[in-house]
């Protein structure tokens, strides 16, 4: 009932983990039933180790979370030796997520992931808002196009491009990624935000600004999914505040092929299985299907102001 296809990738479910919210390795899979998870999208890996930001790295607001972890990871060599060998034996497809400082970094990551049998698809994190030098790829169309085209040349594996919401319109970025050879878009990364402690007159997290996630960003992500799904013919994977089966169906109606679950996994590590159960019930009760609902949003007639 939940089978979904994202390009060439056959998935048991439209529910995916969101990068950065389910670890660098498959350890947390123990909380999920495998038939509920479409793909395991892992945390960003960069060519060199990154120590990440000082603490505090996360703070809350009503309806969401602000984080600036700073892409803490042990680097590609460690990941290749200690994580990748365990991935091929998993029953769920793994989407590896690449970060970097430069086009050559992204190409090196893509080549490395391409060579790993356990990596089914590659997601480019061009929009992590926390590392100053990563921001240009996701907010400048030409830079995005260049890096995606360069990565496209070095892998036949499905290449997903995770877009940033921190732009006036996502449409030129969605189109640029598609024309540069992306197989799917992930829409979208976190929204840059700021939380302030008025008593200390300091930001709540050590980095100053951070990325907003959680239920509060869902309307923004829905708009971004709706805008990008109409602009391109490749699949759109939604990411942004989904925490219930109804949220998932809203994204599907707006045009998403699959939906990543992120912050909701912090409250309960089995969130994806809980949502899958609820999703099957909703589809059955309403005698409908993901196919029937996909991109079915009926837009109201334009209203003049």
């Amino acid at each position, binding site marked *: 009932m939940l089978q979904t296809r994202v390009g060439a990738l056959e998935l048991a479910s439209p529910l995916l983990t969101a990068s950065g*919210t389910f670890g660098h390795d498959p350890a947390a899979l123990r909380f999920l039933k495998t038939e509920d998870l479409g793909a395991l999208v892992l945390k960003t890996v960069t060519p060199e180790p990154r120590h990440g930001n000082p*603490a505090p790295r996360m703070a809350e607001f009503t309806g969401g*979370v602000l984080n600036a972890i700073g892409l803490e990871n042990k680097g590609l060599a460690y990941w290749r030796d200690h994580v990748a060998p365990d991935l091929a034996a998993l029953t769920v497809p793994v989407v590896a997520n690449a970060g970097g400082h430069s086009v050559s970094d992204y190409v090196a990551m893509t080549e490395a992931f391409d060579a790993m049998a356990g990596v089914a698809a590659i997601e480019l994190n061009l929009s992590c808002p926390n590392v100053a030098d990563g921001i240009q790829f996701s907010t400048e169309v030409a830079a995005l196009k260049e890096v995606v085209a360069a990565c496209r040349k070095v892998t036949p594996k499905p290449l997903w491009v995770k877009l940033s919401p921190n732009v006036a319109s996502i449409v030129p970025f969605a189109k640029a990624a598609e024309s540069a050879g992306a197989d799917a878009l992930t829409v979208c990364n976190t929204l840059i935000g700021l939380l302030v402690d008025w008593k200390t007159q300091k930001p709540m997290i050590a980095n100053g600004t951070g990325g907003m996630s*959680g239920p509060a960003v869902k309307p923004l992500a829905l708009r971004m999914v709706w805008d990008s799904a109409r602009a391109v013919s490749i699949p759109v994977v939604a990411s942004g505040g989904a925490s219930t089966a109804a949220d998932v169906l809203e994204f599907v109606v707006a045009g998403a092929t699959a939906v990543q679950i992120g912050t909701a996994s912090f409250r309960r590590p089995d969130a994806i299985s809980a949502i899958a159960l609820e999703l099957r019930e909703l589809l059955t009760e309403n005698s409908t299907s993901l196919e029937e609902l996909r991109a079915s949003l009926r837009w109201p007639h334009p209203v003049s102001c």
Partner: protein
Amino acid sequence: MATAELTAWTAPCTLLSRREVGPDAIIMELALPEPMTDVAPGVFAMLSPADGSGPEIPRPFSLYDLPAPDRATFLVQIMGRGTQALAAVPPGQEVLCTMPLGNGFTLPAPERPVVIVAGGVGCAPFLHYLRLRLQQGAGARTHMIYGAREASRLYDYQAFAALDGIDLRAATDDGSLGFHGNVIAALDAGLANGTLPRDADFLACGPAGLLHGFADYARKQNLQAWLSLETYMGCGFGVCNACPVATEPEGPLGAWPWARTCCEGPVFPLTSIQF
């Protein structure tokens, strides 16, 4: 240290009872989906109201006690949004619980003395620990200094006092019970007058100020010490990297500059972290 991480489960658990144990603290008793045995003291759970009424992030609590194999209690100091939401859950309703998480305390051999230093809600990892020490027959070699600002904030003090054979010492800033002063001063006094052993495992849990004071003191005195850290956590099960603690480069975790409090901790040997 005993790792609980791989056996962790997550489930909505019925709140069986809730009782006040101070002006701002309660003990919540949950029905577990299956019996828990052989669980290390100092492991923790992530708790939030199952109806989603709390913040997006659950809160970490040490496992306080196991009144029965299928019932667990948690000592909750009501501090902010997360704990207020938990305290508002009425008995009969469900609390979402993920546990056992993290690395707890390892009990030394019965002959080895233990000195516990706890402040306020920092007593939480130790009730279960003390029960296990008594089972070891090591009560006479187990000392606990339990401190707070005032006697009313020595949460559930009677439960500790009821453990026959443990050397329990209260310390209060205002002198309303036991030693007049903080736990570090009480520790120093006990070591100076010979009523506390120096060659022992020293374990501490409490607010940041207490832990920093304890860490400084333990380093100066060259005590063999462990800390149970209370750090803001996003997930509690190792995936978000939001609970970093700086590692000691020369220590056992020194290969990476950070440890995750939720996975490598919350109990750390003092020699492994910069704190």
